[in-house]
């Protein structure tokens, strides 16, 4: 049975985790970390805090490209399917319409496009986020359950070259972080 307590005995720590009362404090803390050149740190918030990605210096998402590709793929599949089945494999005279009745094929092609794009969007997002991941070290922080309620967490990973147990701790405390503690990996 894993609980916060059992995991709390750190053998080799994973990250320094603490939380702020308000989005504003978190925002400024992240700016600090960014300016200090930290790379491997993260914020955990109950809702997307506006502009935080800029404060953390994150690159824009690559998701749109995935969706675009899936969309184009869907479009081709949609048209190819109809063209081949009704035009090539078993052409039949239906209401005197031509075998390649392109106008009539638009709706289905469109729907397939949307469908595959959505799949790309859905799966792509979870893929990029590395989810589902049911266990993550930061969850071991005793108050972490409030990260989905009203606390704004920051976590700085030990593996970050700039990381120094004492200085980073101090730096965050000044920023107003609470319950700062290292969590085991």
């Amino acid at each position: 049975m894993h609980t916060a307590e059992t995991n709390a005995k750190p053998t080799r720590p994973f990250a320094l985790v603490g939380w702020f009362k308000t989005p504003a404090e978190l925002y400024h803390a992240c700016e600090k970390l960014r300016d200090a050149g930290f790379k491997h740190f993260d914020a955990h918030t109950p809702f997307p805090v506006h502009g935080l990605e800029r404060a953390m210096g994150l690159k824009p998402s690559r998701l749109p490209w995935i969706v675009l590709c899936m969309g184009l793929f869907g479009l081709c599949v949609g048209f190819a399917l109809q063209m081949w089945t009704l035009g090539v494999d078993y052409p039949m005279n239906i209401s005197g319409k031509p075998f390649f009745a392109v106008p009539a094929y638009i709706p289905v092609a469109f729907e397939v496009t949307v469908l595959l794009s959505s799949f790309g969007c859905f799966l792509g997002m979870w893929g990029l986020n590395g989810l589902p991941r049911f266990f993550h070290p930061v969850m071991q922080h005793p108050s972490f359950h409030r990260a989905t309620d009203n606390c704004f967490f920051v976590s700085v990973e030990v593996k970050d070259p700039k990381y120094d147990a004492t200085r980073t701790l101090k730096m965050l405390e000044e920023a107003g972080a609470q319950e700062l503690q290292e969590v085991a990996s």
Partner: protein
Amino acid sequence: MSTNTTLQDENPAVRAPLVLGGKDFHGVTTAVSEIVERPTPKPWILGFLISLAVLGILGATLADLVGVGIGEWGLNHPVGWAWDITGFVFWIGIGHAGTLISAILFLFRQKWRTSINRAAEAMTIFAVFAALLFPGFHVGRIWLAYWMFPLPNQMNMWPNFRSPLLWDVFAVSTYGTVSILFWYVGLVPDLATLRDRASTKLRQMVYGIFALGWRGSHRHWVNYERAYLMLAGLSTPLVLSVHTIVSFDFAVSVLPGWHTTIFPPYFVAGAIFSGFAMVVTLMVVARAAYGLHDLLTIRHLENMNKIILATGTMVGYAYGMEFFIAWYSGNDYEVYAFTNRAFGPYAWAYWTMISCNVIGPQLFWFKKMRTSIPVMFVISITVNIGMWFERFVIISTSLHRDFLPSSWGYFQPTIIDISMFLGSFGLFFTMFLLFVRYLPMIAIGEVKAVMPAANPHGEHGEDERHTAEAAHAHG
């Protein structure tokens, strides 16, 4: 003058806040989560049992239809479709409001959507399920319905992609799938909240599994918001295409009264119209039942009533335009079809439709009316009745008297027609009640995000409009 809307009355420049009662983040979390965590309320059980009973009726009906045949319905030659397809279009239409609220209003940055979009999306999905019943079971040999999908087979036969009915198959199934994805993506952070608040290990595990280990990481939020945006962007043309294609079922035919180019926009407007009416009906009840006055404010309801008024008027315009075009086209069959609608054997249905859809909603021109709970409740229900009749009128009155007078007929529903339609409500409400019982019916995270306190630049109650600028200043 109703007191619920004070702020707006005092200073039009400032919009009424979306969360009342001075709630903080935790307050919001609790308000919503408690609904799920509280022990099951008696009224809920009662409602659920009733829905289950009605669902049972549906089961019996379907067994009869498959076992005996759809002759059990009142269909005949010439009326090959009646309550079945009426029910289909009716439910699909209802579904549309959900997507509209969650997707289109999202793209338009209408923040007031946040507290209603979750329930609305759920409504969409359940409505689509209810809708799928009808085309599914209206076919004569449902055990062969899978022939409508392009599966390789030893007959070397393929479906006919020229048929609007097949477009429907693709449109509706896509619509259902995408709606579910969209809904689930929105649910994940709230499921995480429920996971973290859960008091029993079982709940922690179940919610935990569906939360996929969400930990609110902002690196995730970045992809998440982009995904949400794009799903919204995809759903918007999708939802428009779905009812457009549904309208093609009729528009593509040669039947006077069906063969009409105005159908796509007309159907979409009608769908939104009926959908919002259904949302209002459900929200008014949920609001009262769970005391969500602070999150589902009068402003939300009023906005929806405005949309009902707008779309209702559009639909009314379409009704009129049909007649004009019929007359203007000089096509005798067209002219007859519409005269027959208004003054033929089905005139009663036509005038029910007009009074419910066009006349009723005009009350919403008056603020008193659109902010009065009882009034909007009644009107929202009559609108749904009216919209059911619209579909019935379009389908049956066009069919029962078409080109050759010799084959004219009249459709009368049988008990099985009625039980099928009734049963579909059983299905819908059973699912909806399960939803409000076990899932957060309001998007917790999104509501928090639109609270003034969510603004990382000072807690003083600012209007959200400033936030963006502030963010830029810092960026």
